[in-house]
């Protein structure tokens, strides 16, 4: 059941269009991420949903009711800010209980709800501390508890992990996702971190220049990017310029630097100048079943895997080789490479919005 809908939502600042005619539906209980680089309009979209920014055009409905013009304090949404935006002059309990106080909830009931929210984010016993006396991770938990104590129908997260260090961030991804699932709360996350979006989301909306470049599950977003932007923004990939020679029911026949490749087109219209994509981890070093040969130009070890650059007839290919134990051949050595046609993707070049 559709819970939140954005219809033709736009925001213009003078000549600059931050968000352009955005259509999006979010199901009840769903975790959806707005993913994109800075300036793609993801934060503006969130701010319009929260009511901090008034849309230039379009409609927002929540549970069937039009909230486009509703004041932010009437929307009852929980918001976690990038800066956490804790109230420095209030204790942890004061912060978490603020929303309940605004609803004029009785003191005893409020104390119960505050304790419950702090328990949920594993911050028991820190009620009397001031934000200044907490670590970054604890502050973030307070911000989450403050938003959840309201028991909102919709939780909005604006880059909430960007100020945490990498290890803590990974832990919070899993923990926050677990809390979200347990409460069944509809959640929208704004992030530029694709790992964050993939770890936590049911669906990802990749935003590019104020528009949706891809809207799908994390797996599909990574495996079947619908637009050139989504292909290169999510993870690393090899981008090979080519020319379409022909088409059969399953594959496009593409010429890449003199080599003919059969690329599954998945029903897409592809013609003329195209890009063929293959992920570095889909190319493997091979001996007997090698499809082509190349020379290792560069070899980097990053712990769990080796990153290689191999000069081949298709051009320079990035290859990611899991660390099985034995190191791959050194720079300058000839190696055989293997991949299957199913690992190749093709999209018409310079199509800004794709044909998703």
């Amino acid at each position, binding site marked *: 059941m559709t819970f939140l809908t954005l219809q033709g939502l736009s925001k213009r600042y003078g000549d600059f269009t931050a968000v352009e005619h955005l259509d999006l539906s979010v199901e009840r209980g769903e975790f959806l991420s707005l993913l994109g680089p800075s300036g793609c309009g993801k934060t503006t979209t969130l701010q319009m949903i929260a009511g*901090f920014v008034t849309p230039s055009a379009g409609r927002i409905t929540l549970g069937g009711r039009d909230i486009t013009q509703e004041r932010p*304090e009437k929307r009852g949404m929980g918001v976690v800010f990038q*800066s956490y935006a804790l109230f420095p*002059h209030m204790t942890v309990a004061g912060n978490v209980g603020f*929303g309940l106080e605004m609803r004029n909830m009785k003191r005893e009931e409020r104390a119960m709800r505050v304790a419950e929210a702090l328990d949920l984010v594993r911050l028991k016993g820190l009620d009397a501390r001031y934000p200044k006396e907490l670590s970054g991770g604890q502050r973030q938990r307070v911000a989450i508890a403050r938003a959840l104590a309201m028991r909102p129908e919709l939780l909005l997260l604006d880059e909430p992990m960007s100020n945490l260090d990498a290890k803590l961030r990974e832990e919070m991804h899993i923990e926050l996702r677990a809390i979200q699932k347990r409460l069944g709360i509809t959640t929208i996350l704004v992030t530029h971190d694709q790992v964050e979006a993939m770890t936590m989301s049911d669906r990802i909306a990749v935003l590019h220049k104020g528009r949706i470049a891809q809207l799908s599950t994390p797996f599909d977003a990574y495996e079947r990017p619908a637009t050139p932007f989504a292909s290169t923004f999510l993870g690393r990939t090899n981008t090979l310029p080519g020319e379409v020679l022909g088409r059969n029911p399953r594959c496009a026949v593409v010429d890449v630097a003199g080599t003919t490749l059969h690329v599954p087109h998945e029903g897409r219209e592809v013609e003329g100048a195209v890009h063929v994509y293959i992920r570095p981890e889909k190319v493997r070093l091979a001996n007997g079943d090698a499809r082509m040969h190349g020379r290792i130009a560069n070899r980097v070890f990053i712990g769990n895997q080796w990153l290689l650059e191999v000069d081949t007839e298709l051009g320079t290919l990035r290859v990611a080789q899991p660390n099985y134990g034995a190191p791959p051949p050194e720079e300058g050595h000839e190696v055989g490479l293997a991949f299957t046609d199913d690992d190749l993707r093709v999209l018409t070049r310079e199509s800004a919005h794709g044909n998703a």
Partner: protein
Amino acid sequence: MATLDDSRAGAAPWLLSAPALLLFGALLLVPLVLTLLLSFRVFSDVAGVQTAYTLKNYAEVVSDPYYAEIFLRTAGLALAVTLLSVLLGVPETIVLARMKRPWQSLCLLIVLGPLLSVIIALTHVLVPFMVMSVWATLQKLDPQVEWAGLSLGGSPLRVFRRVVLPQIMPGVLSGSIIVFALSASAFATPALIGGRRLKVVATAAYDEFLGTLNWPLGASIAVLLLVANVAIVMGCSRLAERRFKHVFE
């Protein structure tokens, strides 16, 4: 009284008002006439005021844009003050007129007396210190904090009172300390506007030094002012520091 003849009866009012008239004539009329005459005299850079008469001075004032600007500014100033006086004075008078007896006299005294003028003038001089001080804390305020308050269901007014105001309080307090210290020790403004009628500590010390020439008394007044000022300022700073210790780094 009936025996007094007409001529003496006619002279009496004049004789009675003669001293006042003399004073009026000597101090106002004569200088005015002299100024009028002087305005037609020829002036030489080398020899000063000459005996010959001319209209050149008037021609110069009327034709020079430098004077035109000054006259216009003066007229604008007068107009602005008149308008403000109407805006403030009329409602004030209406309120005063409706007040009960003792309060009415008291308020009238405040309005007419120099104290209010000194307060207004000093406020005008010192408001920038408060603005600068609050400005500094307002700049440090996380703009998302206000949004956070709204998203938690607080009305803009409640968010201002519970979230914004407490956070700019340190600025308000430090601004208050600066303004208090400066106005308690102010000399020029009270001296100019309050005149000799309304003494403050700084002008009293000045009077002892230069009026009665009682230097030791003047010095002790000055020292007492300094000590009181330092004590109050330090006490307030301590209090503010202790109050906001947990909150701000």
